């Protein structure tokens, strides 16, 4: 940036002449400065740590990390794009403003890329990502993509022929992170499980929602919505507005979004959205059959629901990395394009935060 421009120098000269009070923002009380900083996007926050020493020190204030997280979690999220194409795995991110214009996608450095060139993003929780080696499942890393702090986790495989499934979450009561990929609500991770029920000679298939409590490490069954008998491939669990939600895909292009407004109460499952003509036009033709990172994510479905924006629009991702914002009121769809967006990617909804595992933040929003 050209900062030694004439304009700036003139301004500085004027300042010298005026002899006006020089402190400006620094005259504010520390708790006010903290309040102001907590309202900034994570990239501004980190960039401003190079303004001077006192601004840099603010970054290490645990109160700032938790206040910042509680504010940011209410805004539009930050989207992280995971690319496994062409050769190396890469991460990109975009911060979404209210207007969603002029957004620029930027690359995130991956300090662990030498030990783990190809990875899976297991989940994002409280501003932290959990990543695993895509071939061997080990190593596993916890990574804050903005502060670039990362830590390798203990080995997860005990036996050679063992298959390990990962999830990642944080329990607000015990203040612990556990890796146990699925929806995290009320300190519990949620999966879909396939049930086989024998009725006479016929085998009946059904889907159940199973939870894993991060505090007592117990598995439990959670009541599922009354959305008809579906095979697992047509189901997706997600978290919308802090509630466990199930996306049921009927006939490939009709989506129902069910939200469990009161946790673990079967009657509170409510069909909130019905997305009818979920258009195939957004799908990339080469992704008729999913491959790469897409193989396991969608199964038969052509799209998945990522999150709900502040304005009530639903963010959906089509196979291969096509982002579409759906307005449930008008029934319209808009393809989202950002400058510098990679070609093929998979999106992770993330909250940009200063958080780190040593001093977990208390989030009241989830």
């Amino acid at each position, binding site marked *: *940036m050209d*900062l030694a421009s004439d304009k*700036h*120098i003139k*301004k*500085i000269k004027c*300042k*010298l002449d005026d002899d*006006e*009070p*020089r*402190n*400006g*923002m*620094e*005259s*504010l*009380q520390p*708790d*006010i400065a903290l*309040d*102001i*900083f907590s*309202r*900034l*996007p994570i*990239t*501004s926050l*980190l*960039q*401003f*740590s*190079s*303004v*001077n020493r006192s601004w840099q020190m603010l970054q290490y204030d645990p109160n700032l990390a938790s206040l910042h997280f509680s504010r940011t979690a209410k805004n539009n999220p930050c989207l992280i794009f995971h690319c496994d194409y062409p050769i190396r795995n890469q991460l990109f991110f975009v911060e979404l403003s209210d207007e969603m214009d002029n957004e620029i996608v*930027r*690359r*995130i*450095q991956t300090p662990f890329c030498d030990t783990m060139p190809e990875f899976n993003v297991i989940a994002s929780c409280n501003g932290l990502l959990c990543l695993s080696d895509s071939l061997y499942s080990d190593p596993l890393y916890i990574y804050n993509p903005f502060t670039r702090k990362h830590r390798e986790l203990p080995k997860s495989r005990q036996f050679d022929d063992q298959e390990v499934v990962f999830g990642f979450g944080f329990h607000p009561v015990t203040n612990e992170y556990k890796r146990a990929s699925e929806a995290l609500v009320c300190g519990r991770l949620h999966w879909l499980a396939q049930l086989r029920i024998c009725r006479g000679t016929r085998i009946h298939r059904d889907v159940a929602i199973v939870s894993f409590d991060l505090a007592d490490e117990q598995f439990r069954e959670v009541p599922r919505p009354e959305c008809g008998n579906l095979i697992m491939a047509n189901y997706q669990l997600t978290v919308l507005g802090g509630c466990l939600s199930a996306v049921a895909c009927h006939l490939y292009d009709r989506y129902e979004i069910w939200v469990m407004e009161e946790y673990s109460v079967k009657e509170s499952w409510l069909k909130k959205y019905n997305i009818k003509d979920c258009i195939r036009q957004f799908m990339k033709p080469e992704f008729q059959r999913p491959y790469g990172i897409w193989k396991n994510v969608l199964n038969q479905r052509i799209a998945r629901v990522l999150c709900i924006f502040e304005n009530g629009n639903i963010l959906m991702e089509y196979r291969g990395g096509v982002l579409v914002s759906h307005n449930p009121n008008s029934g319209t769809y808009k393809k989202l394009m950002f400058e510098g967006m990679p070609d093929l990617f998979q999106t992770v909804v993330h909250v940009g935060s200063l958080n780190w595992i040593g001093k977990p933040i208390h989030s009241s929003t989830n």
Partner: protein
Amino acid sequence: MSSSLEKNMLILRSSDGEEFIVPEVVAVMSKAIKNMVEDECASNTIPVPNVDANILAMVIEFCKKHDESEAEAASDLKTFDSEFVNRGQEALYDLITAANFRDVKELLDALCQNVAEMIKGKSVHHIRIQFLGYQLFEILTSNFIWNIWCDRDFD
């Protein structure tokens, strides 16, 4: 004077001695004043030290609007807030100090959000000059030192 004062009215005296007659409901939007009124340690005239008449008038204007418009549409109030906080830096910092000191939560919230909007997306140099009043000499030295230590830019 206080005898002629209507009921439920208070007099606020700024640091430079100017007096403002304000309805009590408006004055108690400042938690500090509310506490004084509740503890009954306030006479009809409440001194507001550290806040001059100019700033006090602005704070009262804000509180009055927020008191009146409780029933009004939230969007109207939002427009008023964004126009209200759109001021020069000096006035902003004085207002923040007053709002913080007098504990006027809504005002402090609107002001902090405004400063955050102002600095969001600005360059570090811009911040140093515009918001911290750095001099050229400081810019050069601090740049030199901080450029060595910091490599915060994203690719």
